[in-house]
Each structure stands twice: as C-alpha cells, then as structure tokens.
C-alpha cells in the first residue's frame, strides 16, 4: 500500500499550510522552522516516491462512475514532481528573508505552502478529472498570493488572473466532457484514450475540441492571445512571481497540455492535422511576441514575465511537435527554464529587497555594489539565451532537433523563432548585466548609496541554481538520460 503516500504527499502541505494561520505563533523563528519543515518533509516524501514509484493508483474518493479523485505517479508526472520538489524548499528559504519587507507573512506562507500541495496534486493526478479539479484549485489558492500587497494594482491583477484562469478552465472543461463521452476512460494512457468505435465520423469535431482544450490549458501557460495576465501578476511578491509564475502555475498549464496531447487525445489522431499546425503556429508566434514585449518593457519583473511567456511557448512548441523528440525537448525545457527563470527572478527580487529599484534603467552600476546577485543574474541571462555550457542550450538543442526531424516550413520557422528569441533574450537580459557592471566612467557610484548583497538565505538558493545550470550545461546526460527514459515510456 505504498500508494497511500501519494495522497499524504498532497495533503501534507495542504493541511500543514493551513496550520500556519491557525497556530498562534509567538516567535517568527518558530514559524519559519515549521514552514520549512513541512516543505522539506513533503519534498523528501516526493523524492522517495519518485525513487520507489508505486505501480498502482490510489482513489481518494469517487463521485460517481468515472468521476473520481485518484492519484498515480507515472514517469512524466515524476519529472514535474521532482522539479517542484526541488524548487519549493529553496524558494521557501528565500522567502523568509524576502518577506521581512512585506506584510501579512502568515497568510502568505499559508497559501504558499498550500499551493505546493495543489501542484503535487496536478503532477500526480491519475486522470483528467483529478487534474481538472486541482487545476481549478490552483487558481483559487494562488489568487490571494497575487493580491498579497492589497494595493489597487495588485487587486486588479488578481482579478484579471482569476478571470483568465477560470475562463481557460471552462474551455478545458468542454474538452473533459467530450473525453468522458468518447473515451474508453479518463485515465492517462500513453497513446490516448479515444475509443475509435464511439468516435466514428466525429474525428473532425474531436480536433476542434482538442484545440479548444489545448487553448484552455494554455491560458495558464500564457500562450498568445491569453498571455496578458502574466505580466500583470508581476505585482505579487517576488517569491510568488518566481516560483508560481515562472514554474508551478505556468508549468502546470504546460504539463496539462502534455497530458491532454500525449495521454488523452493521442498523437495518432492529431499528428499532421490542421489542429497541430494551428497550435504550432500559435506557439511560434508567442515565442517571438513574448520576447518583443519583454524588450519593450522597462519594469524588470514584468520584463522577466514576458520572457516567461516566450519560454513557455518553447515548451508548448515541443509539445505540439507530437514526436518523441518534441516531447523530449518540451520536458527538457520545462526543467531547464524553471531553474533559469527562478534564478533571474530571485536576483530581481534581491535587488528590489535591497534597493527598492524596479525599473531597468535604475540598475546601472549596481553590479559593482551587488556583485554576487548580478553575476548570478548574468549567468541566468546567458542560460536563457542558450549560451552553450549552460542549461538553455541543452533544451534548445532538443527542440531544434525535433523541429528539423519534423521538416516542413513551419518547423524551420520554429527554429528561426527560437534563434530570434535567443537574440532578443540577449538584448533584454545582457543589456541589463552589462550596464550594471559597466555603467561608464562618468557614472557616480555615490548615487547608489550603501547597498550590498543580501544575506545567505537569499544567496544560497541562487548559488544552487547557478550550480545546477552549469552542471546540466556541461553534463547534459545527467538530465537527458532520465528524460529520455520518460519519453520512451510515453510512447
């Protein structure tokens, strides 16, 4: 009965998180220890589960017939699980220092920890219904985090986020209904679940439903034209923008799309159809669109958010290739982008925390005062550009390889988009670094005042991310061998 631990992993942070607001804390230190303890315990449990993967599923409860909340950890789910389990404790550690300059810590940590449980629920969902359930829950537990500062801007951003997400989920819901009718089962099955006999001549309709469903889940993955909420949500505290809006929430959207494409509708039905082409074209457009908007944006966190928009579509581009190589690229980029982007967001957060500076042009010369932060920002920027030797190049390699193997105009356009995006990334990331380190000889450092690098709780996660970027960049087989096996199991 190892399966029961799946539920425990999901429930532990949910209940433990709720506990933060219930327990009357006397000391801040105790709350920190408790919070980190819950998160670490969950992560340990998650890694143990990945290493000894229980074969069966665990049904928590059954509404009726096919409708049930049940968990199962398969290979693709393990990738996402491992990713969040690795990042959450580090992000929590970072938040302890960062949140000293925000208010309402208790509420923040409550929702922050609960989101962990919900995200694990998505990654360990056995079927589409469970996935959908946790997907909706994810929206609900993260809205308070977006609105955390309770400024007018934050509340407006939270509302936008809510409308977008709920609207997206409604689209996804349509897809789910059709699957329940035309599928053999709603459980995720490699190759898809559609029942050829029941489908009959409705293949064309199914393609349309697929596109609707994909677009619905893509709202969280911020694909054009559903991307506007993400930069707006940048008003949230940095740990939220970094972990949720660069990793957990947005990648949940991408992950759901992997599930829908490879495990529900099945690539056999979709490959080579207009549905695939339309979605590929949309992702290609988003790749360039996101980068261009990032270039135009002068607010640092919003710029990074636009960059996330672009990078998420790298993942979706891989997903819509509908080939083993494409899935490989998508999963690689899911992992790589998470590490790179969380690192750059945390650097941005460190700057805000220390100097209250949020616009790009205010960062000139800061590299001399905060060398560690800007060094790591540069490293993450170079990784995002895809400088060989860092993570970004690895995933880009597989995405491009998948596209070339596919052939056809759209694929070559996709590679071109990747390259244009890489160049624009260089402009909007390295431009900042260069001017931070070399503001020019006439720059007056006195104007910066007394600033320095933040404390170890903020720096340690950053150094770990940088180390991971270099390690995977120089020894990509550590990552790609694992993901190769995962991809093999999905076909």
């Amino acid at each position, binding site marked *: 009965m190892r399966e029961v631990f799946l539920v425990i992993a999901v429930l532990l942070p949910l209940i433990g998180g709720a506990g933060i607001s219930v327990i009357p804390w006397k000391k801040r230190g105790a709350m920190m220890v408790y919070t980190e303890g819950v998160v670490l315990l969950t992560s340990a449990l998650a890694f143990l589960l990945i290493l000894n993967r229980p074969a069966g599923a665990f049904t928590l409860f059954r509404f009726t017939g096919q409708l049930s909340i049940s968990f199962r950890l398969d290979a693709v789910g393990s990738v996402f699980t491992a990713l969040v389990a690795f990042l959450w404790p580090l992000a929590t550690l970072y938040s302890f220092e960062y949140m000293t300059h925000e208010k309402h810590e208790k509420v923040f940590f409550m929702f922050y920890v609960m989101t962990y449980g919900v995200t694990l629920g998505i990654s360990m969902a056995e079927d589409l219904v469970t996935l959908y359930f946790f997907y909706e829950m994810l929206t609900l537990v993260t809205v308070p985090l977006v609105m955390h500062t309770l400024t007018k801007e934050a509340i407006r951003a939270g509302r936008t986020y809510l409308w977008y997400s709920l609207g997206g989920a409604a689209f996804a819901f349509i897809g789910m209904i059709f699957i329940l009718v035309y599928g053999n089962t709603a459980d995720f099955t490699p190759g898809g679940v559609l029942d050829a006999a029941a489908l009959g001549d409705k293949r064309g309709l199914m393609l349309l439903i697929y596109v609707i469903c994909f677009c619905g889940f893509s709202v969280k993955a911020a694909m054009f034209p559903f991307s506007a909420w993400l930069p707006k949500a940048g008003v949230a505290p940095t740990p939220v923008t970094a972990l949720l809006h660069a990793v957990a929430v947005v990648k949940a959207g991408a992950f759901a799309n992997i599930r829908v494409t490879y495990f529900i509708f099945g690539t056999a039905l979709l490959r080579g159809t207009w549905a695939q082409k339309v979605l590929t074209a949309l992702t290609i457009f988003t790749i360039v669109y996101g980068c261009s908007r990032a270039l135009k944006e002068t607010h640092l966190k919003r710029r990074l958010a636009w960059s996330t928009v672009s990078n998420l579509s790298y993942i979706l581009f891989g997903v819509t290739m509908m080939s083993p190589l494409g899935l490989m690229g998508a999963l690689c980029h899911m992992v790589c982008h998470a590490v790179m982007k969380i690192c750059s967001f945390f650097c941005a957060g460190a700057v805000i925390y220390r100097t209250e500076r949020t616009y790009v042009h205010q960062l000139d010369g800061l590299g001399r005062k905060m060398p560690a932060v800007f060094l790591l920002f540069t490293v993450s920027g170079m990784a995002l550009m895809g400088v060989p030797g860092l993570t970004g190049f690895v995933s880009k390699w597989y995405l491009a390889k998948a596209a070339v193997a596919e052939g056809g105009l759209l694929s070559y356009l996709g590679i071109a988009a990747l390259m244009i995006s890489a160049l624009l990334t*260089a402009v909007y990331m390295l431009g900042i670094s260069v*001017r931070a380190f070399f503001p020019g000889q006439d720059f007056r450092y006195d104007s910066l005042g007394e600033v320095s690098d933040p404390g170890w709780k903020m720096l340690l996660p950053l150094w770990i991310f940088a180390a991971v970027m270099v390690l995977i960049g120089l020894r990509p087989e550590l990552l790609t061998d694992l993901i190769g096996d995962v991809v093999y199991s999905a076909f």
Partner: protein
Amino acid sequence: MLVLSMTVALLAGILLLTASFAEHLGQGKLSEAEKRSEAEAPDGRDGKLHIFVGGVMLLAAVTALAAAFGEGRETVLFFLMDRIPISFRLDDVGRIFLVLTVVIWTAVCFYSFKYMRHEGEEKRFYGFFFLAYAALIALDGAANLITFYFFFEFMTLCSMPLVIGRGGREAVMAALKYLFYSLAGAYLALFGIFILYQSCDSVAFRAGGVLNQALAQQNQGILLVAVFAMLVGFGAKAGMFPLHAWLPTAHPIAPAPASAALSAIIVKCGVLAVIRTVYFIVGPNFLRGTWVQKVWLILALITVFLGSMLAFLEKGFKKRLAYSTVSQVSYILFGLALFTPQAFAGAILQLLAHALVKCALFMTAGIFILRTGKTQAEDYIGIGKKMGLTLWGYTIASLSLIGIPPTAGFIGKWYLCQGALDAGLGVLSYLGPAVLLVSAVLTAGYLLPVSIRGFLPGREEGDWGPKEREKADLMTVTLWFVTILSLLIGLFPGHILAFVNGISDAIL
C-alpha cells in the same frame, strides 16, 4: 599542451577579474578624488601586476606554441548532448591560426602595459584579455563544430568587455552593439548548424566535409539555405556586409590594444569559422557553382569596395582603420569563396599579412593618441619629425596592406587575383580582380597621406605635438616586431606557401 595553455590563461583571467572586483568593493568607500590620485600614482603594485601578466602570457604562449609544433592528438574534455565530445585536435589550419594568435596576443600584451596604465582598469582588462585568449586557443584547436560553436560564443562574451576600457556611456553602447551583432551572427549560424546536423555523418572536422551524400542530395535546397545562414552569421564576426556595422563602431572606441587584438585576431575567428564550415563540414564540392557561392562572392566584393570607400571618406584615424579592416578581411572571404588552390593560398597569406599589419597600424594609432591626444587623421601633420620611429613602422605596414611588392600583402593579393581568374566563374572572375585593384588604390589613398603629411608637412607645420623626440620603448618595440614579421612573410613566403598548399591539396 593546448589544454594546459588554456587553463593557465583561464585561471589567470578569473584571478584578475576577482581581484578587480575586490578592488571595486573596497574602493566604494573612498571618495572620487582619492580614487583618482591612487590610480595615477605610479607605485610598485603596477610593476608587480605587469610581471604577473607578462609571466602568465609567456607561459601560455610557450605552451601553446609547443602544442602547435607537437603532433595533433585528440583530447576530449567532456560530452554534450547526443554524446558529442567537446574535444581538441590541432590540424594544419588550426596550427596557422594558433601561431598567429599567440604571436599577436603576446605582442599586444606587452604593448598594452604602457597604454593601459593611462587607460586604467588594468586588472579587468587583463582578466578579460586572458579569458578571450583561452577561448581563442580553444577555437583554433577545436576538433568539431559543436566545440567550435561552444567557444565561439564564449569568445564573444569575453571579448565584449575589452571594448569598454575606461570609456563612458558611448563605449558601453558600442560594446553592446558589438555583442548584439556578434550574437545575431552566432544565432544565424546556429540555425544553420541545427539544420546541417541532421544531414551530417558526424560533426568532427574532416577535410572535404562530413555531409552524408545521400541525405545531402535529398535536402539540397534547405541545406544550401543553412550553409548560407552560417556564412552570413559567421561573416558578422569577420565584418562581412550586411552585418559589418558593429566593426566601425566598436574598434575606434576601444582602447588601442583592444582594437589591435580585435582587428587582428577576433575578426579572424569569423574567417576560421567560415573555413571550418565550408571546407571541413560541408565540403567545397557541395557548394561549387551554387547560388550560395555566387551570393557569397558578391557579398564579399561589396564589402571590399564598401569598406575601402568608407575608409577613404573617413576622417577619424582609428575609425578609418576599422573600415579598412572591413574591407581587407573580405579579401580573405572572397578568396575562400573561389574554391581554387591559388585563391586559398592567397586568402591565407592575406590573413597572415592583414593580422600583423593591422595590429601594427592600430598600435601606431595608440601611440599617436597617447602622445598627442589627437584622434583625427589630418591632425598628424609633421608628426614624423618627432615620432619618426613610429611613423616609419606605420608606413612599412601600410605598404604591405596596399599590396606593394615585396610585402606580404602583395603576394596574397597576387594569388587572390590569379585564383579568381582561374576559377571560371564568368563575370565574377573578372569583376573580382577589378574590385581588388580599385580597393588597392583606395587603400593607398587613405593610408599614405598620413605618412606623407607626417614626414613632409610643407608650410602647414604647426608648433603642436610632443616636445621631445620619442625614445624606443615597449610600445614601439612591439610595433616594430609585428611590422618586421609582416615584412619577413613577404620576403620569404616559400615555407608558408608550401604549408598552405599541403592544406589545400587535402581539402580541395
């Protein structure tokens, strides 16, 4: 040995950069005035830094030369995606570039001691100087295309800060322009690499190319596009039209040693990249007679003419030299595009000659600017009276760039023209030599007036300029060192020609 040389330079670079950072963090507390007085005081620390830098440079140079004259064994460092090794093996083309890099880098290093003392930010400069050196050595020795690309981007990133020096905002913007043009080129090339990768048997450099013939026939159309993307992309580094614009912005604003290094070596990495792509990955036979070859030739010729013309019209001395680089490097690219043994030999000779000569010219510019503080070419009237030593070096180097016998430039251009006429490309075969000739006239037109008016000022002689006659110092010595080397190549080209013919026999 190669790896050893790289490691030495890499470690020294990182050490110097860390030291530079530590200095800055410490200096934050000093006031501006104190900082300035500290920078100007000629104290003993300066000497120690120079001994350290010189020592590291010599060590790195000696080990690299030992590698160049040793046998080329393959060293694998680690593996990237798809088990592609990051590995080094020196072949003959690599040897030429390696020796050239080591010679120029050492010369520039010793030249820069005096120059950079005035410029300031020495530790940072030498830090990036060594990092760039490590990347260049790695480029020369790279055994496959992925290794090459790996270090190509690394080299771009490390050489960018060299441009900034002590400059203000303008210099930073120039550096960014250099960076973004180079990256645009690199990504264009990467686009090509991705497409090419599927149709290659391996990515290791092999004379004659590694294309899988069956696949190549099948995908000829897209492969040609890929190769063209790589040519234009790598051509950005070599200052080829249409991605040449970074060069006249970045070179003049950089400190003189950096301009010399950029113009002599970094720009040549683009050339090396083109050689590797065309002769060692794709194979010249795949491109012969295709639209790619023709468009490439036309682009190179446009650049040759455009560069010379703009240099002729330009008044700023260093900017003029930068335009001249644009023009002269495309001579090399033109030669490489012809796919004949003579043209190849001409290209390599032109490469050697231009590297040495342009290094000398930028060194001259640095000395002039340092001594007189003037930057316009017209300002140097009568400068030969007090600074004859430098101006003679400049004049001899100029003659070589124009292509007057018996200098190295002449032999290179001779072979280039011969190769063009032999290539049998119709109009282009005749157009090429014609453009080269016009460009040579323009080259004389923009280089020689400085010498003529420097030595023969006529009545315009003013009472400006350095009061004392210049003495031979480290700067003039290094200037003469590279000038004499370029003369020697012109006088005794036999060995080099034989060596180059050995290469072209294998690849053509």
